[in-house]
Every structure is written in structure tokens, then in C-alpha cells.
């Protein structure tokens, strides 16, 4: 593939914009070796400015999850470098990565991963307990519109409600970065819109830098920028001149 056809996901030296929080250069991730090697990421460069809402699009195996995992400090690249503000993520120890996740990052998973033995308020408080400057549990729960469900346990909630609890749990610590891996993948469209609305709120109202993985291209309408991945490369970068509100999406 030629150099010209390879999209570089850099805002291109616009120094007047918000500061860059993520900076990745030549990120490569290879599983295995020799003829059986699987190249999950190939030489990816990426800058993400503070407060940006990014959607990663691509079919399974395109490398979007690997990229998200490296940004979230869950995985290490085979080569290249990744940096969050002053934190060097490549080569960091397990303890440093844990501290990085704890202080800066929040995750929303496809399957919610709530603690079944804790109710809504407690699931949120769990994270607030280890955060430096959390918002109140009630505030976070109110942000996702689940105040009436504060004392319910996950098994008493619908899938969409559980995912909104996951979002509340993610935003309660006022994270710098919110990473969402297929947050609507297990939900119907109506419920999915509610969850995306909660994520959008965090991005707009708290200024949280947000990266959402999806294979649903409709969701891309919400983003500032949409990165398309294929075979471990960013093959397309598009900037939405006008972002859609979560409620306007339909699929």
C-alpha cells in the first residue's frame, strides 16, 4: 500500500487547538511470530486532543480493540510508542499502568461487567472510593438518569440500564479519558441511544476525551473524528463538520 493512501490520523500541526493528550507513533502489535504471526496493528500514528470524541470503526480483526487496549494501558505494543500526556505507556510497569488507569482512564465494556453483588449506588461508589476527586455517587447516577434505581441490583435491571450504570461508574471519578468497547453491542437501538446519550453527556459536560469502538457506522455521526481501521491500519479519517446528538441517531 502506498504512502499516500495511508491516512495519518494527525490534526496536522494545528497548534491553536486544545493540547494533545494521546500521542502514538509507529504503534505495531504482532501476536505470534514467523509465518503464523498475526499483525493486529501496523505502524499506527495517532494524536488525540483533549475533549475529542473519537469513534473507531472497522470489522472484527481490524485492530480497533488492540488500539483501545494499548491506549487504556491494558496491552503493550510490540513496537512503537504511546504516550498519555507526560505518561509513557510503552514500557511502563504493571504498577504504573494500574496507577494510570486508576487516575486517568475509565472503561465501558460491551457486557457491562457490573459487580452483581453490589447495587447501582455501590457499583458507582466502588470506583469513587479509589478516585482522587470524584463527583458524588448521586450526581453520577443522575447524569445517566437512574436515580430511581439507585438501590437496585444489576440482576434487577435491563441491559440498557446496566450499561448506563457502567457509564455512571465510568464518569464518577471525572476521568480524563473514557474508553468504550462496543458499548451498544448487546443492546437494541432505543436502549443503545440512551447509553450513547449518557456517554455524550460526559464528553460535552465534563470535557472527557472519549474513544468509542463500534462496528455500527451510524454511531460515527456523534464523533468529532471517525477513524476507520482495516488490517491493523488506519485506512480513513473523516471529520464530522456537524456532530449528531445521540437522540438523532437511528439504526
Amino acid at each position: 500500500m502506498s504512502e499516500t493512501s495511508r491516512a495519518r490520523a494527525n490534526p496536522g500541526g494545528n497548534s491553536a487547538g486544545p493540547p494533545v493528550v494521546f500521542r502514538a507513533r509507529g504503534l505495531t502489535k504482532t501476536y505470534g511470530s514467523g509465518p503464523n504471526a498475526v499483525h493486529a496493528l501496523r505502524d499506527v500514528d495517532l494524536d488525540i486532543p483533549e475533549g475529542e470524541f473519537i469513534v473507531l470503526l472497522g470489522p472484527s480483526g481490524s485492530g480497533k480493540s488492540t488500539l483501545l487496549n494499548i491506549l487504556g494501558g491494558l496491552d503493550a505494543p510490540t513496537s512503537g510508542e504511546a504516550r498519555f500526556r507526560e505518561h509513557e505507556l510503552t514500557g511502563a510497569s504493571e504498577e504504573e499502568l494500574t496507577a494510570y488507569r486508576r487516575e486517568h482512564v475509565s472503561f465501558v465494556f460491551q457486557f457491562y461487567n457490573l459487580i452483581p453483588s453490589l447495587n447501582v449506588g455501590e457499583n458507582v461508589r466502588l470506583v469513587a472510593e479509589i478516585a482522587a476527586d470524584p463527583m458524588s455517587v448521586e450526581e453520577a447516577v443522575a447524569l445517566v438518569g437512574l436515580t430511581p434505581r439507585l438501590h437496585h441490583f444489576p440482576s434487577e435491571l435491563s441491559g440498557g440500564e446496566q450499561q448506563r450504570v457502567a457509564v455512571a461508574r465510568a464518569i464518577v471519578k471525572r476521568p480524563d479519558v473514557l474508553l468504550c468497547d462496543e458499548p451498544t453491542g448487546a443492546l437494541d437501538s432505543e436502549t443503545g441511544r440512551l447509553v450513547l446519550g449518557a456517554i455524550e453527556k460526559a464528553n460535552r459536560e465534563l470535557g472527557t476525551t472519549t474513544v468509542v469502538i463500534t462496528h455500527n457506522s451510524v454511531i460515527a455521526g456523534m464523533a468529532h473524528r471517525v477513524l476507520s481501521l482495516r488490517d491493523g491500519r488506519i485506512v480513513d479519517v473523516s471529520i464530522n463538520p456537524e456532530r449528531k446528538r445521540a437522540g438523532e441517531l437511528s439504526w
Partner: protein
Amino acid sequence: MVIPGGMLNRKALRDLWALRAQVISIALLIASGIAVFVMSASNYATLLRARNDHYAAGRFPDVFVSLKRAPLAVAERLRLIDGVGVLDTRIAATIRIDDPGSELPVMGRMLALPPQGQPALNRLVLRSGVWPDPARADQVLVNEAFAARRGLRPGDGLRGILNGRLQSFVVSGTALSPEFVFATRPGDPLPDDRHFAVLWAPERTLANAFDMFGAFNDVVLTLAPGAHVPRVLAEIDEALSRFGGTGAITRRDHASDRFLADELTEQRTLAVIAPALFFGVAAFLLTVVVGRLVETQRDQIASLKALGYPSGPILRHYFLLVSAIAVTGAGIGIVAGHVLAIWVVEAYRGFFRFPVMEHRLEIWAVLASFVVSLLVAMGAAMRSVTRIVLLPAMAALRPAPPQFRATSLPAWFGLVWSTRSRIALRGIIGRPLRSALSMIGVGLAMPLVVLGLFWFDALDYMVDMTFDRIQRGDVYVTLTEARPASALEDFRRLEGVLLAEGQRVVPVILRSEHRTYRAALSGLPPGGELNVPRQSDYTRLPVPEEGLVLSRRLVERLGLRIGDSVTVEVLEGRRLVRDVPLTAISDDVLGMSATLSIAALNTLLREGPLINVVALRVDPAHRKALFRQLAAMPAIATTSSKQVWLDLFQDRVVGLIMVSAGLLTLFGMLIVVGVVYNVARVTLHERATELASLRILGFTREEVAGILLTELAIIVVAGIGIGIALAGWAVRLLLAARSTESFEIPPVIASSTYVIAVVAMIVASALCAWLIRKRVDRLDLVAVLKARE
């Protein structure tokens, strides 16, 4: 049509490999139970076979009588008694072995051999040397136990005092006899091979020394089939009463046989009760662990069903899986049990004097091991698998999450516990049945450790009770005949004697309706310091002015209650018969005692204030000097020392019990590790997603492991609580099964034993926690993002 199963078998093998740590720990759990069972069952069978062979080949009699002297013609009359099988008469005598090197006098039982050598009953097994030459008066056979203790070989010399005359003998050989598997001096609670010998000499030797030509003083006989035992005994007693008969006894009151029977009871208890207890625990744990193992494969079972697999092959697959574990465990257990059994039988050789004691692996025990472990494993798998297999495929695909409700916890809870502790505690409360089973599993492991360790406490208590509280004298001297109480003064003057008390001890038969017991009835001085009947809590039982104090076991054997009248038949002197009321019950642990005040006993004997036993408290510094003085005193029949009894107790009782106790402790520890490790592994498996999620959310390894380990800690602590409650019960159960007449082991468990058992539990748990902690560190965080819970 392709039969489903080929791939499932491969899955079974791979599952076994993937789960190897758990598989091994479960297999070892089974192996522990099987090993104890195979070992004890084989050993019991070995002892039983050795005894029965020895008794059959040696023609061990059924009835024994001693008398003063009867002409040989009386034997013919005895043989005519209905129910008598083979009857043999002989001359028997108590002699003293001359051994200046021994602190205590060495006594011997000398028995006459008929001219043809081998007696009709109690046939000997020659172990070395040759039979004594009937033409020579100086040759004797010596029992092997004494010869081994004293290093006597054929050709060695031996001097005995027969009827007051010193005679020299030559050991012609060593022998075993079925009547002296344990050679016990009459009246002694334990066999003492150092100070008691059995000698067999040609009849002429004894007849000469004791003036018994044409006469006998000992009768042994077998019973004819269908004999009415009490009537035979009564007729023999009747026939011999004129000749000083001391009452016919059966095997039950024969010292060697009783000791042997008690040992067999002991072994049977260990062979049946302990393994049953042990294997019951292992089976229970197996049910829990296998159930959980199957539960963790719930989604796989559902997938197989969704793919159209019928339930049959799926069930068969899991049966195969658990059978492989069960068979492996049983196999290891059988091999280990066999090896241990061989080792224990070797240890037995010093205790049990049998001509042949060959260990054999009991085939029925092997078969039973396989069958029981397979049944238990399959039963355990069945319960879990069918529950899942019978679910509709899609329902099974979903895990069964605990259903937490808003009302799960009390309101105060939030004030006390952090959110993370709530996860741990709700993890337990949310699965109440499973948590309870885990706690019970841990709780059951602990009594096994206590069952091994408590013997030390019980034996300590026995020694303390018997030798420090009840028989407080250091030395007991038996006089050749009863003497006036003033004879005590001779002993008080001896160097090293701090305190001397006189006692009167006579052989009696105690009778209550049809029940009888031969006992040594002790007359004690009221308020005496050296022999003090006690109750189990150490309280002194004052010796009553009138009335008997009997051991609790003796009271039970005779079926008595306080206030009941006991018939006392004195077996010496004028052979008086008197009824005496039972006024108190004492708690002896060793032997069975019958006590009366010395005044009451002498009154009963219609005699003045006489004594025939002197109990002494001795200054240890002058011990040796005292024994020298005693050896020089006339009219002393025997001298016995508490220290010798302590040593014998250590040898005979403690040594034998410790072999079993040590093994129980070892296996108990193994079970502790097995239970805690499996509980921890399964909990980790169930909570892996949750814990990895927490790691992703920024919790450190320590914090995440902390949640899991808190949950485990709660289970272990609760389990220990259950274990403490169960331990006492398990000990009492075991002891209730083993109670014998020779001695009773009290259910005494020292707090230090509980502490050791608890520490063992904590160490085992900590080891498991460490292993689990390692696994928490290796949790795959990335996989969680994609995986369903």
C-alpha cells in the same frame, strides 16, 4: 451413524489436563481416605489371621483354672464333665529369676512339659534351639519376648529361685505359646517383658522343686461344641473346690487373650471407624468439588446440547471425567495404603509375638476402595450434571448468577463495611448453599487433624490421672503373706522412704447375678495419700468406711448401680463369700479397680489389721539405695516401680497408638489443603471476570486479590468454627467405638491441640491464598472486555 463420544473422550482427557491441579488435589483427597482404609483393614486382617492361626495351631484352650494341689486321678473326673473337650493338667509355679543387675525383682512363670515334649494344649512353637532333654533337670525353654529383651540365646545360663532354692538352668531354646502372646504377670495391667519371663521345663524339674509328683496345680481345657459354658465352669469349680481351685475362667479373663482382644478392637476401630469417618469426609468434599467442577463447565454442556448432543453421552462424558479422578485417587491410595501397611506390620512385630505374621493386601479392601470411590465420584457428578443437562439448552447457556435483592443486607452494614468488603461478603451470602458447603468442607477437615493430635492429650491425661493422681506411690512392695500393720515400721525406717502406707490386696470374684469379674480387691487406708480413687474431674473419692468403690467400666460390665449389692467371693484363705454394697464409682483409665477400706476388707476376711502390700513414696536421690535394701529384705514377693510402668505404658500403648495417630494427622493436613485449595480455585474461576473488570477499572492486584482472599478468609474462619465444634464430637465418636476393658482413652482435647489444628488450617489456607494470589496476578484483562460474564 457416527456415535458421539470420540471427541468427548478427547475433551475429557484435555479437561483433565487443563484442570490438573484440581484433579490432583481431589485424587489425593480420595487417596488419603483409601490409604487409611486399605492400611487399617489389611492390618486388622493380618493380626486377626495371625492370632487365629496361632490359636488353632497351638490349640489355645477355652478355660483356665489354677488350684493348690490335686492328685492326677482328679483329672479323670474333670474329663467326664459334660462339655469338656480336651483337658490337660500341668504343674505351674511362680519363680523368681536371679538377676542381681536388675533394680526390680524379675519374676517367672514356670510350666511343666510332658515327657513327650509338646503339651496337648497350648502347644509351643520352637523359635530357636532345641526342646529340653527330659533326662536332664537343668534345661528350660524361655519365651521369645524375654529372651529378646535379655539377649538370651540357647546355651546361655539362667538362675532361678524355685521354692526358695537357687537352681541353675541352661536355655535350650526359645519358644512362643498362644497363652503368652503378651506375657503378663498375674495382677499387672500391662505385659512387662523385662521383668517377667515364661519358662518351660520338664515335668520332673517342677515336681522335684515343688513336691508335686503325681499331682497337678493347673488345668487348661477346650470346650466341646455346644457346651453350656457357665455350667461347665460351675462343675469344674465344684470339683476343684476341695483342692484349692481359684475359679475357672474363660478366655475373656485370660490376661494375654484379653490384651490381644483389646488390641484387635483398637485395630478394628482404626480399620473401620477412622477410615469411614475419613472417607465420609473425602466423599463429601468430592461431592462439593466435583459439583463445582461440573458447574464451571455449564456453558460447555449447554453448547453440546445446543449442537444436538443427546444427554446420555454428555452424562457419560462427565462420568468418565470423574471416574478417571476417582480411579487415580483409589490407585494411589491402595499403593500408599499397602506400603504403609507393610511398614506398620513391621512395627507390630515388637508388640505382638506371633509365630507367623504375614502382611497380605486384602483383595476385598482393594475392590471396595475402587467401588466406593467410583460410586461416590459418580454420585457427586450425577447430582450436578443432571441438573444442568436437564435444563433447556438456552437456559443452561446462561450462568446462574446469584440473585441479589435490595433487602439482602441490614442497614447498619454500610456503616461498617467498605464497598469492596461488601463484594466479598455478598459473594458468600449470595450463594448461601454453596458457601455453607465450603464452610462445612473446611470444617470437616479440621477434626481429622484433631483426631490425630488429641491422642497426645488423652495419653497425657491417662498418665497424669493414673500415675500422678490415683497410684501416687513410687514403689509398691508385695509381701509373701499378710502381716500385722506394724510391719510398716520396717519400711518407714528404710533410707529414701518418705511415706509408707499399708494395703491389703486379695484376689476375688465379683458377682452380680450371672455377671462375674475376677479382680484384685484393694483395701486402702481411709485418707491415704498413695492410692486415691478419683472421679474424671480429678475430685478425690473418699474411701468409704463400708462399701465398695468400683471402676466405672467394671460397674458397667457387672450391670450395677450405686446401692446395689455385689457378691464378693474371696479366692484365698477361707474362701469367704460376702455381699457388699456398691457405694461409689471411680473413673480409672487404666485397668479396672475394686476398692474397699482396709478395715472393712479385713473384717470381711475375718482377720485383724493385716497388710500385704506396702506403697512407698521415695526420694529419687535414694532410689537405688532403697532397691538394694528391699532386695535384702525377707518376705517380699515382688517389688514394682511406677517408673517401670510409665516406660511400659510408653512402649505398649503410646507407641502403638502413635503410629496411627501420626498417619491420621498427616492425612488430615492433606485434606485441609485439598479443601481450601479447591474452594479457592473454584471461587477464583467464578469471580475471574469480576476481578479482572476491577483490575481494568484501576484496582491494584493487592486490592483485587484482597476481595477474593477476604471471601476465602470468611469461609475458612467460619469453617474453623465449625471444625472446633465437630472435633470434640468426632473424638467422642471414635472413642465410643474403641472402648476396651484394659483401658479407656478419655475424650480429652487440650486447647493447645485446637491451637495446633487451627494453625495447621491457617497455614494450609495461607499456602492456598498465596497460590491463588499468583493466579490473580495473571488474570487476562483483555479477554474480559470481550467475554460475557
